[in-house]
């Protein structure tokens, strides 16, 4: 069934998504979905196609084939309406360093059409412990503080689909735990779903309801991160991940 015809209950529906660069197949006919109140981990070794997949979901990269629907809205046909329901945070996309935290949140709040923007910004400054940095330029913040600003920006429009590309990569363990709790709370309190990429398998086990293991642009495995390792004869998710990564280089079969 085409992605845009699927039930609106799914916050993200990806159908037969493919991206080819010349002879290179970066993403090869993958299909998956994210349900409301669900955190799905998108895992895989470097170069597996995770960021390419996220770029296609965000509409900044055109798929060679396949469809993306956000809350039932086809991204290719109604990009604006689909992206109004989504937001993202990625380590490789910091907010402009020459604007203050408040200025960045205000500009992005307008871009996402956030209602009662000033009070929403104030709320987020509190939630992400950013009040003291309100008038500090983002470029002057530590990488962990910048990540928190980026997460605050990602929450501005209370997205139904939140894409997080290694959101805790530059956070200290305590802050990373707080962020995980915040995102878990967001997911359980609202109707939103999250697609989460991370190389921290302990974090994935703790946070994700379901994981997709991507390798060479295809989904090799899918399931509960706590049950999946045992199912494939591995001690834990990290061991399973390593096996997938080695399979990729032809060292060992899973």
């Amino acid at each position: 069934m085409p992605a845009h015809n699927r039930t609106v209950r799914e916050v993200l529906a990806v159908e037969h998504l493919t991206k080819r660069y010349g002879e290179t197949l970066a993403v090869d006919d993958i299909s998956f979905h994210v349900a409301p109140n669900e955190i799905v981990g998108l895992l895989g070794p470097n170069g597996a196609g995770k960021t390419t997949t996220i770029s296609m979901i965000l509409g900044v990269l055109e798929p060679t084939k396949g469809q993306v629907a956000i809350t039932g809205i086809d991204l290719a046909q109604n990009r604006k309406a689909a992206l109004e329901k989504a937001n993202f945070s990625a380590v490789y996309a910091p907010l402009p360093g020459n604007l203050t935290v408040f200025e960045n949140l205000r500009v992005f709040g307008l871009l996402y059409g956030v209602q009662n923007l000033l009070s929403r910004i104030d709320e987020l400054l509190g939630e992400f412990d950013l009040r003291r940095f309100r008038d500090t330029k983002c470029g002057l913040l530590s990488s962990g503080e910048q990540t928190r600003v980026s997460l605050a920006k990602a929450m501005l429009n209370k997205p139904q689909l939140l894409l997080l590309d290694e959101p805790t990569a530059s956070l200290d363990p305590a802050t990373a735990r707080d962020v995980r709790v915040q995102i878990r709370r967001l997911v359980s309190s609202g109707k939103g779903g999250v697609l989460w990429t991370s190389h921290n398998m302990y974090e994935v086990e703790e946070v994700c309801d379901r994981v997709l293991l991507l390798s060479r642009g295809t989904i090799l495995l899918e399931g509960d991160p706590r049950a999946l390792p045992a199912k494939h004869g591995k001690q834990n998710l990290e061991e399973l991940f390593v096996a997938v990564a080695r399979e990729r280089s032809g060292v060992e079969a899973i």
Partner: protein
Amino acid sequence: MVSSRTAAIVLRQFYLMRGSAARVLPLFAWVAIDIILWGFMSRYLNSISAPRLNFVPSLLGAVLLWDFLGRVMFGVTTAFLEDVWSRNFLNFFASPMTVADYVAGLVLSSILTSFIGLVVMVLLASAIFGLSMFSYGLALVPFILVLFLFGIAMGIFATSIVLRLGPAAEWFIWPLPALISPFVSVFYPLSTLPQWMQWTARLLPPSYVFESLRATVNGQGPWWTGLALSVVLALLYIALAAITFARVFRLAVRTGLIARYSAETVS
């Protein structure tokens, strides 16, 4: 009606300018220097030529209008380059903002910044060298309009070049006004040019403005037909530039350039 997304682009530009002398000063500093330089040049030419000749409205006025076109173009490109410099494409274009919202934001930013330059130039030229913009009469309206529209078209086209070729291509766009200045006859009549350059000039809207300016100063009255044609031409160039930007953007999304812009080429 300006969308909140277009307003976001303008607000971003305002925030950047508010705290940065390096951004505010170029809005008027270089054009002010130009006015001083060409003002004294006009005065000198007045002193060595026949008494009835006055170079202030023809030469200084032309420099002022030419600089205005440059300010309009750079108003668009600088607002765009802010996103290149801060590597902000991914954040902006993964939002619900459309290409039309974005380009409208660049144009609105340019209207605000270029008029600051225009006001400073007019004040300086009139206070120090006695140039009255009213001496051009009603023709001043199409003069400003045509140069503004063509400046917008050049700005959008220039941003397309940088979007297509990558950050290093910004060096291609700074000299663009200088590249077309010999053709549009800022300082001399079109008839001075060889035939092939005259034909090229007829395709460029500013040529009609500067030819009209000289005709007005010489008492022949503005070249209204030429000015009307130049408005149409300028609008056509805006449409072509917008189509070019949209196509380049689509290509950038297809090849992944938007997501990995610093790589300069992805295809």
